[in-house]
């Protein structure tokens, strides 16, 4: 009995915080989405008009497509991180140092990363184009100004930013695998590749699933580097859902519509998370 009270007591602060900081604002933004509101003056109730508009808003769906592209790319990049983690965990020389190096981008603030990559991408003085010109490319592209390239140009630092995080997670999971299992496999004559694919990978599958969900959700609501590096431009070519929402609410003074977009973003993220979890669900955990 007293135990239950204690649990409730311990859970309460966190519950209160999440309720105040997350659930109440969520409900509120869904509610603001029903309003015609410039964020400053009086609100006017207009029913579902904002939500209907959002569904027909070509720019919103463009930005949604960009967000999905980012989700696809970050999920695919997990493969690379996994390979790196597998190599790092197989006791190669300098693994410790390398792991720390991979983690550095994560320690930098997004704005610092954005500034760094803005300089790298500078069309005339940037490092990237200087190198390209040095190796004989006569007209290297203007990365952040080219509507066909800008999105992918921003994906690179975004993926780079989170590489260390995922590598660290995989590395920790791999380190948790008991040495005896791997030794047994080795005695049975399994090659390193076989050990990686047939023993290690299945054992950390639950972690991999979590990272997939993290990557997908993180991408769908991604905002910071895009905001600092291009502001969604040129002409919306690098707009993602969150930056579009921000623009509507803060630059166009259309808080009602911005809130509606934010709520749609939430629903999309929830649905996608649900689908991803369904797709990656297995009946039972593998144990050896």
């Amino acid at each position, binding site marked *: 009995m007293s135990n239950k009270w204690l649990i409730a007591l311990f859970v309460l602060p966190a519950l209160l915080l999440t309720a105040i900081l997350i659930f109440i604002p969520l409900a509120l933004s869904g509610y603001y989405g029903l309003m015609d509101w410039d*964020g*400053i003056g009086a609100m006017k109730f207009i029913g579902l008009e904002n939500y209907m508009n959002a569904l027909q808003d070509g720019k919103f769906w463009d930005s949604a497509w960009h967000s999905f592209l980012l989700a696809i790319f970050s999920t695919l990049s997990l493969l690379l991180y996994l390979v790196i983690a597998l190599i790092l965990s197989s006791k190669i020389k300098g693994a410790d140092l390398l792991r720390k190096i991979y983690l550095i981008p994560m320690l930098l603030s997004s704005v610092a990363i954005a500034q760094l990559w803005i300089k790298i991408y500078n069309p*005339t003085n940037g490092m990237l184009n200087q190198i390209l010109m040095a190796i004989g490319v006569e007209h290297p592209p*203007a990365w952040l*100004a080219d509507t066909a390239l800008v999105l992918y140009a921003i994906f690179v630092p975004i993926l780079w930013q989170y590489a260390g995080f995922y590598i660290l997670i995989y590395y920790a999971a791999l380190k948790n695998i008991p040495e005896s299992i791997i030794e047994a496999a080795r005695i049975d004559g399994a090659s390193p590749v076989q050990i990686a694919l047939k023993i290690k990978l299945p054992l950390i599958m639950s972690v991999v699933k979590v990272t997939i969900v993290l990557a997908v959700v993180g991408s769908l609501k991604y905002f910071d580097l895009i905001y600092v590096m291009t502001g969604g*431009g*040129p002409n919306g070519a690098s707009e993602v859902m969150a930056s579009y929402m921000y623009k509507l609410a803060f630059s166009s003074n259309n808080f009602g519509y911005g809130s509606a977009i934010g709520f749609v973003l939430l629903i999309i993220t929830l649905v996608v998370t649900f689908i991803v979890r369904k797709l990656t669900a297995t009946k039972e955990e593998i144990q050896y």
Partner: protein
Amino acid sequence: MRKKKAITLLFTLVATIFVIVGCSGTDSENVSSNSGDTKTIKFMHLWPEGSSKTHHTIVNEIIANFEKENEGVKVELEVLSNEQYKDKLKVLSTSNELPDVGMTWAAGFLTPYVEGNKFAPLDDLLENELNDSFVAGTAEAYAIDGKTYGLPLELNIATIFYNKAIFAEYGLEAPKTYDEFKHIITTLNDNGVAPIALGNKDRWTGSLWYMYLADRIGGTDVLTSAINRSGTFEDPALVSAAEEVQNLVDMNAFVKGFNGLADEEAKSMFMSEQAAMYLIGSWDLPNFTTNEEVPQEFRDSIGFFNFPTVDGKGDLNSHVGGPGVGLFVSEDSDVKEEAKKFVSYFVKEWGEKSVTQAGVIPATKLDADSLELPQMYVDVLNELSNATNITLFADVQMSPQVAEVHLNMIQAIFGKEVAPDEFAKEHENALAAE
């Protein structure tokens, strides 16, 4: 085990304390700000020490003087940079927590705040102690329905700054006509010098070019009347101005990748002599005159010219520009009287100090002869007094929603993603939907 429990308990305790402190924070603040005899004016401005040092210093001086002259009044500062400032102002106004005094922009930016009853009218100041102290047309830009809600601090016009040393090297001179201007662009390009620095990631920078072309091709009111709906945006002049923008892009008039560059980056290209021309407001004058951090040699090599006439049309003395930021007083302020007094004090002091110390051209009337100013200031002040027209920046004139369309379209027209007639049509639709 016991240790674990202790840690958990400690965590819970700390978390609870945070919650309690967090919740009670605002109350205690309010109590302290109005208790006793001291009154606190909360003042928010957008000149951080790092990027606008001289502005920042002057503000601090004015506040110190004001506090000295007014016993019992304290000014509490909050400083943010431009974009963050705009966002914070909006959030604060949503939650009814605007500072007592802050900065606002004219016309389109101001309108929602006035309609939402957030700003106090300042006409009593204009009629009394500040009577006749503003340059004609500047305070008026902050008026809505006959009441003035902001007092401007700056007045700027945009002109094309150019590097005289580069021009001299290729035998070029400041142009008067568009043909001469185009000749300069081709000559510079032939010699491998980027003609014009433009940071169109910020979008209003490209808007300046478009506005000037529209002004020269279609006359001084064509854009303004399209925006205030007495005309249409599908006016042939506005379409051909958009065409002209694309012609310039085709001529490689602008630095490479301009649509992805911020204004700051473009500026640094101009200041490191990687580009020969740069269209910007006179707020950048200090960089070309008094700023000690810029090499003297560079400052001496900079001149400016008015946007040239296009095909014999247009008036060289018509400018794009207008007042920059102005001060507002919050309608819900608890210390409105003190706040108004502060605003009026600030405007007066600012007018005297800003031009000599920070190189800002204030919106208050200035006795240019009594001040010792660099030649370029005198020239710009002359341009201002000779100006036949000053068209307020388009994105300031427009409501925020239309401005957003305009700014996106500017990037699109410069990036050649829309045709000039679509460009005009999108504007027309947005304006008509208002």
